């Protein structure tokens, strides 16, 4: 149950487990080292309120009635969620653990686990989560800048970062070199790139589309 008082942008450890006592114990344990905790009794409950912008990590029980932990992991992955996942399970199924880790889980802990092991993984996952968010912010920023370009500027931007000279671009697009230079300068300004290599770096961050 989310605490409405605490700011939602504070990094949070989300716990999804169908056992009320496991939830309560984990809440207490994680709170004891100073993290903000939110608990959910089912994968569906968590998924229905999931917010891309929330930072933190997810502690996820594998076996639950309704949507299983593995299903939730898959669902989060298809929507490109950034939240690192620590899987927990009362069953030591190795194939399932391998699958979870292959699908990007930070770790797969078998219940009952030691607090130190769990807390280490949480702090690791929290770091990873904030790193992913930073990268995502940078990428989003580049995308926003790119989206502000006019169609012509986008066209010239693409040509420039593919390494073509202004002269070649002008010839290909059948416009004057001067026009290319103007659009190029405008695009550099909007992308806030000081030089070509910065522009290329920004281009790398953009999602492959169009």
């Amino acid at each position, binding site marked *: 149950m989310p605490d409405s008082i605490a700011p939602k942008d504070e990094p949070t450890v989300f716990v999804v487990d169908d056992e*009320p006592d496991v939830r*309560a*114990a984990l809440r207490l344990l994680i709170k*004891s080292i100073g993290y903000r905790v939110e608990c959910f009794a089912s994968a569906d409950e968590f998924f229905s309120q999931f917010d891309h912008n929330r930072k933190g990590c997810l502690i996820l029980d594998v076996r639950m*009635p*309704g949507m299983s932990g593995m299903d939730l992991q898959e669902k989060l992955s298809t929507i490109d969620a950034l939240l690192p996942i620590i899987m927990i399970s009362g069953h030591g199924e190795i194939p399932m653990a391998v699958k979870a880790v292959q699908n990007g889980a930070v770790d797969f802990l078998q219940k*009952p686990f030691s*607090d130190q092991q769990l807390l280490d993984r949480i702090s690791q996952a929290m770091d990873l989560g904030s790193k992913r968010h930073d990268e995502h912010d940078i990428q989003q920023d580049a995308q926003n800048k790119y989206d502000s370009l006019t169609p012509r500027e986008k066209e010239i931007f693409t040509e420039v970062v593919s390494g073509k000279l202004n002269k070649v671009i002008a010839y290909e697009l059948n416009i004057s070199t001067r026009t290319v230079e103007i659009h190029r300068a405008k695009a550099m300004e909007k992308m806030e790139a000081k030089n070509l290599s910065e522009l290329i770096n920004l281009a790398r961050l953009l999602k492959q589309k169009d």
Partner: protein
Amino acid sequence: MHNPVSDTAFSAQQTILDNLPVAIIVVDKHASIQYSNPQAAALFSELSPEQINLTQLSSAFTEQDFLKAISSLNKKPAQIFASPFEKTLSFDRCQLPGLYHLKMVTTLENKKSQNNCLYLITLNHVNNDPSEISNEPRKYTLLKKNFKELKQFSRLNAMREISSSMADQLNQPLTAILSYTQAMQRLYQSNASLEEISVAMDRVVINAEHAGQVIRDIRAQLDANSLSCQNASINQLIQESTHLTELDNPASQINLITNFEPLNTTLCVGTIQFKQVILSLLNNAIDAVTDGSIETPEITLSTQINGPYYEITIEDNGLGIPPEIQDNLFNPFMTTKENGIGIGLSMCHHIIELHKGSITIDSEPKGTKVTICLPIKNH
């Protein structure tokens, strides 16, 4: 089912073999099936011979012989699993002579209708002497020889399942106890409020008691044959079972309705086993209504006196039971639960039978109603 032998001694054995939770086939030297139990028919009904890995098979009985036997069994209509998933089987030699472990693997992940069941087959070699072909008693003597081993094996198998179920059931309270205690240590060191620590301590006690109850229940399950009956209020036993479930949690979303008969009748029952039955049925009902798709989960618990019977009903408004498995609900290892082993209902059935009562399950299109009838006298 082939049943060429009609004498009563065999029929009595056959009833038992029919009900053992393992697949049994008796085949003669010509690879024709002399006997097969329903479990065997269910196992092979959908299986093509190519799906069977026979590398471990006895040398006395060739692969071809076996495939022939399986093919004849295959012609029978599918009995249980008319589902689309594939199964493959492989054999392992068992420590008992003439018996084979059969490993079944379903291709559908997470959907184990039968959970890694161990099945086994007896391959009996009836003497090929023409004078003996019509000698019916010979077959059942052979069966008798294996019979003791079969019972022993299925008991071992059940124990294995019970111990794995025990591990699963103990894990949850142990995880809670460990995490609560570790949190308490940290809270104590950080001079947290005593109240917070005390709440956690209460939960540790409750979970430790729960773990103890799991062990007692399993122990009771193991010697369910020897009921120690005592007079007890059925209403009270039911309430005690309720306390061990999620329904006791104030945060539970499930609406529990109880209609207890007012006389608070006492019956002579094995209290531990009886509570085990109610707990198992309640847990099934809870699972059925917490699927996530039920908007107002509700469980109704009623007791009433109906002529010479004491009737207990547990009704839920969950998803109900798929029609294709309704006939096999009480079979050991039949489960629709992802982490179930299919021992709950068969154990319930067994325990209620020991009380000379009956247990029936109705599942309309939606919801499930389990009715237990116990005779009021002659317990």
